[in-house]
């Protein structure tokens, strides 16, 4: 299925549109999505360090989704680099 992953913070550099789209198997886990994102940035966004992807979380609008969780049915995810609010 097509996943749309919204970008925030330093990860906005990965695509000026503010999101990336990835084709992943249905029912992928977040851990699998993370690997797909790693491959994507290796090919398309070399300025993004793999370590930053490793330290980023994934989330729906409602909650952070940890590695064992499956992707949401609506195919919408956000990738959240380490946070620095306040």
């Amino acid at each position, binding site marked *: 299925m097509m996943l749309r992953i919204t970008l925030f913070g330093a990860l906005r550099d990965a695509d000026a549109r503010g999101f990336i789209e990835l084709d992943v198997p249905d029912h992928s886990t977040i851990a699998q999505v993370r690997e797909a994102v790693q491959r994507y940035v290796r090919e398309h966004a070399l300025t993004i360090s793999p370590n930053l992807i490793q330290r980023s979380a994934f989330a729906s609008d409602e909650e952070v989704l940890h590695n064992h969780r499956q992707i949401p049915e609506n195919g919408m995810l*956000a990738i959240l680099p380490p946070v*620095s*609010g306040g």
Partner: protein
Amino acid sequence: MTDIHTAVVDIAHAPLDVAGALDFVSDPRFGGVATFIGRVRQHNLGRVVTGVSYDLFEPLALRTFQAIGERARQEVGGPMKLYIAHAKGHLRIGDLAVVIAAATPHRDEAFRTCRLAIEAVKHEAPIWKQEHYVDGDSAWSEGCSLCEEHRDAELAAAKQGGNKHGHGH
């Protein structure tokens, strides 16, 4: 519940509203009001800052603020009011980035609630700060990972380091 107010404020439209925060938490039951205001500083890590930009994942940020408020309510275990607002957009030196106000019957819970809320906002809310420097350069601040495994490791390291995060916030 009307005892928790959360907001993300686009400061292109209006600044954060300290008086509004105090009004919200005001209540004849409460004698103690603790507030924290985070402002944009002119220097960070030795560099001259001209402004910062805040990027937020707004729906999740608001849910996170609300969850922080509910956790605070549990901690207090009695009446309290809590206001959490964070700015988004481009801020200049002195602009308000975050306003927290907590009110409770007595001062100790007010201080604890306010502190709990600002620590949680800084460490848990999906908010990112980009600093702009006088030389035209800019950089996203290092932050706290929201990944469970990284987060646990970072918090443990922070405790060892005398409660200071390696990334300095």
